[in-house]
């Protein structure tokens, strides 16, 4: 299985999913078609979790700006992580700038909704 690397654009974040278990999603997320954009990532993850995975999976998310459908997509993404949490040691770092209230709130929402996931709020 190969790593997934998508370069950031004006409307989309950079996505680096490494088979060694280090994931990072960094940038802005307001694509024209959010679900289409993230489809390769979701497919990759499903494949990743069905394979032998490394001991630990670390997800670093640093989303500066996101639209509503991206917010929905992130919930779906966390659903997928939650489904796999028992067999995989998953840790999520939600990284945000201290000034970025929206990003902080989103992080808190995720923690609230996904009690069984390890989500760390990390200020920059």
């Amino acid at each position, binding site marked *: 299985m190969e790593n997934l690397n998508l370069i950031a654009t004006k409307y989309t974040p950079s996505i680096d999913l490494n088979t060694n278990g280090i994931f990072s999603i960094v940038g802005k997320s307001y694509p024209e078609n959010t679900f289409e954009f993230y489809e390769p990532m979701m497919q990759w993850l499903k494949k990743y979790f069905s394979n032998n995975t490394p001991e630990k999976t670390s997800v670093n998310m640093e989303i500066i700006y996101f*639209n*509503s459908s991206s*917010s*929905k997509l992130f*919930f779906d993404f966390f659903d997928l992580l939650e489904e796999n949490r028992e067999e995989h040691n998953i840790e999520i770092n939600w990284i945000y700038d201290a000034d970025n209230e*929206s990003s902080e709130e989103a992080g808190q929402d995720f923690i609230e909704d996904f009690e069984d996931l390890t989500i760390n709020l990390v200020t920059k």
Partner: protein
Amino acid sequence: MNNKLIDELEALKKDFTVTTDHFIKSIKRQDKIMARSDQRQQREYDELQRKFDEVANLTKEIEDTQKEVVFTLGAIGESRSKETGNHVKRVAQYSKLFALYYGLPEEEAEKLKQASPMHDIGKIAIPDAILNKPGRLDAEERKIMDTHADLGYEMFKGSTRPLLQCAAIVANEHHEKWDGTGYPNQTKGEDTHIYGRITAIADVFDALGSHRVYKEAWDDERIFKLFKEERAKHFDPTLVDIFFEHLDEFLNIRDSLKDIDYT
């Protein structure tokens, strides 16, 4: 005894619960996303509005500063040549009025209004001995004096700013004449830029009607006579026509910007 139908119904019930739970969770989540999104949009829009105001204020600040600097520059040019402060203001107003009646758009007329006071800016590079000489200039001195048109042009020609480009044209062409006997390039008719033609007539009208250390103010009849004579000679005939057609407006500007004390 197991009733198979009951088992099936129980299983369906369980599936139904799972499915409805899933839907409820999904709907709640959707509601939350919407609520957050509304809050966010409100914040973003407020922030945008704040930034727009800031940009508008800064833009105004820049424009005001530019106007002031340009006006001050013009005033420096005039003070060197013993003109009065209101002269540049009046020339500015006349120029805009000419521009509007000539048919230039408001924005361009306003630009010319701001640039026309700089027509004599080249005079800051003319030696005092010539600039302030009490009597008539001899041929050699006149030649040096006349370089102020080119000197002014040189000062602004490198700028990409529309206002300063306009000032460059005004400085360079305000001594050209309709019949091609002006300076520095002896351009004729509409080969002289409209900015130059307008500033020429505005400047002369004001200079003639103003008291100077070396001359009394001309009375209006004498000025009008000259304008009629110089129609299509010194001045663009269209502009002379505009002048007479809207004479009251030009005189109003003159009255509202009188030189208070010139003793």
